[in-house]
């Protein structure tokens, strides 16, 4: 498929369709050569994101969601001649305001990190340097992108720590990461990521390690800061509750590929892919009395070295038999089911609607 055809498939919002999207990923592939074979972590992924909007990327471990975010940030080791160990093999295009990041030098991409794009990691303890105070780490990042004196930068750091809800920021700015509790550390890292008002914020499982009450505080914080700076946010998580809470659009990934892509409303109220049905059915519901039994997905996710041919989900799919073997042979591409909603599945629209209405929706 040509790049332009792929571009047409990328979901866009009607009101912004003629403008260039802020972030656009086209046919991204990230492969890692290993002794056991080639690990295809991301294999042909496309999506787009505008400013002020949040894209939720959902998937289980090994679905390629974090690898995608690291590719956008330019954090994969690229293969070079003097390396003994081969790095990641990347192909495709990642456009940030029309600029293809994959075609740029690592030095150039590094200069973008901090101000143009920033990332919140899952584990704040390993994302911070334990030898330096929290304040010093924020000041350093701020001074790289802004020609200000240390005094001004320090004032900005204190200001940021206060904004993310850390009590007594003028005292805490001189504390070391280990002196913070888990929730405070996460907030400090968010302060660091946001210190230069990034245009693109990638949050990789930002609340997975946190308790629910702290999670609620952090999600609120991301929402507030996004509306203030009109940033584009990529939210990577396995928790569908967090996605429903925060995301405008949702991309469901499985074995390095997009299974379904659409608005949060479409994904939660009219999901079209059997894997999405499985995810929704696997989840015990907090907000209603229990149903008979969870609709678990059978089997386990595939190895990324030996991804099943055809539809990667077919060995676990209850409906694969309906396609006369097409699921095992032909790889389904994302195709529209309604405006702004695409799905990669061989089921026909009629079959899909019938299964959803009679077999899935009543049991959720």
């Amino acid at each position: 498929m040509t790049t332009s055809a792929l571009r047409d498939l990328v979901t866009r919002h009607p009101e912004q369709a003629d403008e260039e999207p802020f972030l656009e990923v086209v046919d991204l592939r990230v492969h890692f050569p290993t002794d056991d074979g080639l690990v295809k972590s991301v294999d042909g992924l496309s999506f787009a994101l505008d400013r002020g909007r949040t894209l939720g990327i959902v998937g289980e471990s090994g679905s390629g969601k974090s690898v995608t975010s690291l590719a956008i940030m330019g954090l994969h080791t690229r293969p070079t001649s003097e390396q003994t160990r081969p790095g990641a093999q990347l192909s495709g295009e990642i456009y940030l305001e029309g600029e293809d990041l994959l075609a740029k030098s690592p030095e150039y991409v590094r200069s973008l990190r901090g101000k143009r794009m920033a990332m919140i990691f899952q584990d704040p303890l390993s994302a911070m340097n334990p030898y330096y105070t929290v304040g010093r780490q924020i000041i350093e990042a701020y001074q790289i992108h802004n020609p200000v004196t240390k005094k001004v930068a320090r004032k900005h750091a204190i200001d940021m720590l206060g904004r993310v809800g850390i009590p007594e920021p003028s005292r805490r700015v001189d504390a070391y990461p280990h002196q913070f509790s888990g929730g405070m550390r996460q907030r400090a890292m968010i302060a660091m990521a946001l210190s230069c008002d990034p245009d693109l914020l990638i949050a990789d499982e930002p609340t997975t390690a946190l308790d629910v009450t702290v999670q609620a505080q952090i999600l609120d914080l991301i929402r507030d800061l996004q509306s203030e700076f009109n940033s584009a946010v990529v939210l990577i998580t396995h928790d569908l509750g967090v996605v429903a809470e925060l995301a405008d659009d949702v991309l469901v990934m499985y074995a390095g590929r997009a299974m379904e892509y659409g608005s949060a409303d479409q994904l939660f109220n009219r999901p079209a892919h059997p894997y999405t049905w499985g995810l929704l059915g696997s989840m015990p519901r907090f907000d209603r009395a229990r149903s008979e039994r969870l609709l678990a997905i059978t089997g386990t996710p595939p190895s990324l070295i030996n991804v099943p041919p055809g539809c990667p989900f077919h060995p676990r799919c209850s409906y694969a038999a309906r396609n006369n073997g097409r699921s095992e042979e032909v790889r389904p591409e994302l195709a529209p089911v309604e405006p702004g909603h695409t799905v990669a599945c061989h089921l026909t629209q009629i079959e899909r609607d019938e299964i959803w209405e009679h077999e899935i929706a009543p049991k959720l």
Partner: protein
Amino acid sequence: MSAPAQQPAAAHAEQDSNLVIVEDLIKHFPIRAGILRRQVGAVQAVDGVNFAVKRGETFSIVGESGCGKSTTARLLTRLLEPTGGKITFEGRDISHLKDSQLRPLRRDMQMIFQDPYSSLNPRHTVGKIVGAPFRLQGVNPPGGVKKAVQELLAAVGLNPEHYNRYPHEFSGGQRQRIGIARTLALRPRLIIADEPVSALDVSIQAQIINLLEDLQEEFDLTYVIIAHDLSVVRYVSDRVAVMYLGKIVELADREPLYTTPMHPYTVALMSAVPVPDTRRRQERERILLSGDVPSPISPPPACRFHTRCWKAQEICRTQEPPLVELLPRHRVACHFPENYSPGAEDLR
């Protein structure tokens, strides 16, 4: 143990339906400092907890990190010795039994751990891991250990031919099944599961939850489940206890607890759970608790939640609210409970 004999028949029946009774359970971990390693304080992990677990039910303990739920689980299985209070299992006081006295007890009481990667010995085959309880307890199952192990593997949904494989050949969900097969080996009456599914992916989580339910029926098990995921707890439990800083703040049947929580902490906890429903995004009212959980080394006096509670009054700082049964089968420790007006018992 002559006291129960003197009690009236009704109380006796009540006692019989309880598999485990926990009274005023306390566990303080000493903090030592200086050259002499003198005790300078204590982490008050569990501080006066009372509950009873009925035969055949699923009793869950929920709470955030540091609330003492895992310590409670370890006290129940006597992996830890309580500092104070009493644990009765099948009418027998097990609070201070010695290791040698505990061993026979472990046949009736088993534990499922959170991490399927660190709870299995990587150098042992699946057959050896699942068969270990038989060897340790000197039990000879009819038909031999190998046959018994293969039956157990089949019961938890694994292929009996996997007998000679090693843990690294299995995925996280399969490893959790191996761990569950091991706990079932000696046909225990009570299984204590500490975060049994939190390390697993969503689709695998559902498989294990369904498996635990099937096994409960098949093997007539009583579960105590320790979890932080309120959605999972609502799905699996019959009764739920909510812990905060070493104390139970609310204990009730599942549905009343989720539909009409009474302790402000429970209310805040429930309101913070993200719900996978985009239509409800706007409707929900969220109570944001400020700050972090205070340190269990010096917990706030009186009501431990008063430092973060929006309803706190003077009495909350001076007088500790007891855990009382405000509604039938619904116990709360709060001076100003939510969803409650005196006389409302009739409405239930």
